[in-house]
């Protein structure tokens, strides 16, 4: 169907049999019925779990290296986050990178797993993990602080490599 001077024009004429509708219905039926015998995609969840590929965007985590976070509390992730999920409070340390987050909180109820934080981070400090099982019993519990976000770099090697390769 196309549009011309505001008038709808049928560009494809249906054949008599198609206009009769019933044969088409049976065609459709045979398709649906044949689907019934195709292999299923369902994971039998608690016993059988989805193992995401490294391109998967699970919950964001903070990379920990040599016992400290890579994050320098620049606040860019917090600024870019479309859902305002991230709150960063910077402070000063004696280490070479003089800035660090005293408080770093992601509200997992707000997060929409867009991965913008990962993309904007200049330190590759916040990255998307493979974790997708997020259950909370209260709003308060859904706010993840540093203790739940920090993950040693070795555990997220795959994602870090994926990011390097897809730069």
């Amino acid at each position, binding site marked *: 169907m196309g549009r011309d001077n505001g008038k709808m024009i049928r560009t494809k004429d249906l054949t008599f049999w198609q206009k009769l509708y019933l044969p088409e219905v049976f065609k459709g039926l045979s398709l649906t019925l044949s689907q019934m015998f195709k292999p299923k995609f369902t994971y039998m969840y608690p016993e059988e779990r989805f193992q995401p590929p490294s391109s998967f965007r699970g919950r964001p985590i903070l990379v920990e290296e040599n016992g400290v976070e890579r994050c320098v509390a620049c*606040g860019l992730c917090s600024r870019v986050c479309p859902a305002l999920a991230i*709150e960063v409070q910077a402070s000063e340390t004696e280490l070479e990178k003089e*800035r660090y987050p005293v408080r770093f909180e992601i509200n997992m109820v707000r997060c929409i797993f867009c991965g913008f934080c990962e993309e904007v981070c200049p330190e590759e400090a916040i990255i998307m993990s493979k974790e997708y099982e997020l259950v909370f019993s209260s709003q308060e519990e859904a706010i993840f602080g540093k203790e739940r976000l920090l993950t040693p770099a070795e555990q997220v090697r795959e994602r870090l490599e994926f990011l390097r390769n897809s730069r």
Partner: protein
Amino acid sequence: MATITINGTEFQVDAKSTIIEAARANGIHIPHFCWHPKLSVSGNCRMCLVEVEQMPKLLIACATQVADGMVVKTKSERVIQAQKAVMEFLLINHPLDCPICDEAGECKLQEYAYQYSVGYSRFEEDKVHKPKRVPLGPNVMLDVERCIMCSRCIRFSEEIAKQPVLTFTQRGTHVVLTTFPGSELDNPYSMNVIELCPVGALTSRDFRFKARVWEMAATESVCNGCARGCNMNIWTRNNEILRLTPRQNEEVNSSWMCDYGRLETFKHVNASERLSGPSVRVDRELRSIGWEETVSELASELRGFRKNEIAGIGSAYATNEDNFVFQRFIKEVLGSKHLDLLPHVIEQVEDDLLIKADRTPNSLGARNVGIEPSSGGLSASGIRNAINDGSIRALYVLEDDIAADPEWHSVLQKLRLLVVHSAVQNATTALAHVVLPASTYAEKHGTITNFQGRVQRLQPAVATSETDRRMDGLAASRWDKFSSKNDRWGRPVKFDARPSWRILVSVAAALGTRMKYNTAEDVFGEIANVVPVYRGMSFARIGSKGVLSKSSPVPVKT
């Protein structure tokens, strides 16, 4: 007058001006680091190179005087090339770690890197490393690596603050900014170098690493540190004041502010000793009770005194509106003639730049709106004596810690009733029978009158428990706008305090007098009607820069 052509357009400009000034006066921006309109020209950053016809080389716009018929190009191919080159040189040794730097977001180098630079670095060698975190003085921290040697800080200290303690040592890429041995950058205006510094080399030791500039909301207000009333911005995040920065007003404070004003005039707003909710003394203890109960209890207490047993102490810290309603309250509602205020003057601190000996922001304003004894009434010292001999038994104090003065402290205990409006717990509230929590200058609308007679506006930057940042039109950052109760950052600390004039209106109502004010603007409208020196003024006319009233500066007596 001289006629010059900039980028193909002709302008009439002051013949004595430089190219950069002439361009600026006509809205044309020429990038620059070291030039500053308030400082001498040093011409060392080379960022302001422009092309002048008939001149073989590019000229620095900051140090070239205009001449009649001059043709200037600020965006020609050669100029752009030069700007790129200058930026490249500046960035050779500049650390490229803006995420760590505290200036990011309000950094001239960062902005120019986007506007005038090539966008990548060709420099592969090791950068020169220099000391970081060097305290220059009590309030300023230096990161030498980030310094681009513009010398603005040096010139400011010499020319404006008159404390020449800063200098460069070494040469070439090894230049280091430092103080002379044995000296410190500790003049009363030292923190102005923080804004002057175009990069993150100089930072405030108080504010450092506390917040990103884009996380905060700025509110135009006026400093309450002394009688000058420097124009300033109040920067808040999550309902907390994080820093104060000067706002340019040539009539009052030029572009500067003193360190005392920046550091000491806002901490009490979010302090833990802030009063929240009114309280009444029951059996020697202050008990918190609701506003309505407090007001009605206070009204019935006040009814128990004869007119000449009551006195009022106004406040040079409170706004014109508060003082105006206060004098009406004391004189008309309570019918007392005894009304005065206490001056707070420290002669030694006054200087020729900004700082005034009168440490209160509004003593002239308070006097103008009528804080003075009626004929036959007692002045401050008279009230003190009368309390001492027992003829005055009730005292109503507006926003002033009078008990901090030992002479007052000793007599206040003799009072049968001491009512205080105060934002924080202090010596006076410790003695008071009724304590009414007052909003601070950062939580309400109002006006104050500085020593010149200039009426300037205060605007709320911090919400109290009865105001809402969004609904009441306070400046709001993105965080303020989209917060919800489930966000930790969406639950700011708010104090239960009210502007003094509103408290007074409700006490007056409980005593049977209706004052028809709903907003601070209503009160000011009445002031503009009845106080001759403020005739015809309005909040709108005062605007962000203030209006000079015809009041003659009153000599403040000690």
